């Protein structure tokens, strides 16, 4: 299951809602979580647009050479959301 609209949960019975969570939380076939794949794609798109790797972004932020815009903040959020820790 790839995504579930939160608002749709409000229209379900408790049992239906429980089933939705069971489906949502079940390990995906092949072990590839769509959200993880989607995050990696987002990160790749920032790296292409800014013409720098995520490691370079982090260096520039640490050195005060780059401003934390809304998009940079989004980039940082997704980097830190990857399950194996803060960095790819």
């Amino acid at each position, binding site marked *: 299951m790839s995504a579930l609209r939160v608002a749709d949960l409000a229209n379900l019975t408790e049992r239906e809602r429980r089933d939705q969570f*069971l489906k*949502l*939380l079940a390990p995906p076939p092949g072990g590839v979580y*769509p959200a993880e794949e989607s995050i990696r794609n987002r990160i790749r798109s920032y790296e292409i647009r800014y013409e720098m790797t995520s490691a370079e972004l982090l260096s520039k932020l640490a050195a005060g050479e780059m401003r934390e815009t809304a998009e940079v*903040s989004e980039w940082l959020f997704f980097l830190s959301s990857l399950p194996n820790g803060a960095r790819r």
Partner: protein
Amino acid sequence: MAPGGKHSPNRVGNYFEIHNTRMHQHVLEGFVREDTLELSTLPDGILMTGELPCLGGLRIEVRKKLKRLDGGAEPLVRTVSYSYNVSVAGVGVVFRYDSPHPFDGPDYHGDHHKHVYDVLGGDREGRVEIVPNEEAIPTLSEVIDEAREWYYANRNKLDELGLL
């Protein structure tokens, strides 16, 4: 997080029941036009992302990660990171709350913090305020309340700028 506090772990079903009750109120009230938030799964938790279109061209971008603390159909979950970005479409950011960034960087990266901009005055640099304590870390519903207050406080100016 303090036991029993607003950010304490909760069963996933309860968590989203509370979320939907509050969001329904915001939509009924008319400030939030639609709840488009979606859930997707990571090996260690749940990601909630999306955008809430609001009155006056405001939009609230939501990114939040809930960590799964146990198993089963109703696992215990707790927010481990978030970013709530409030902006005026086509103009700029009003404010953004971010959880600590686990990376080297400015001092505020280690704290829950808020970026604040005088967006209608052309401010693109902004300033950073540290969230002083756990109780002051906002829930999404509190961020919506703050965005709504900003909207009503700045409605005339938004109108003068042709943004309404």
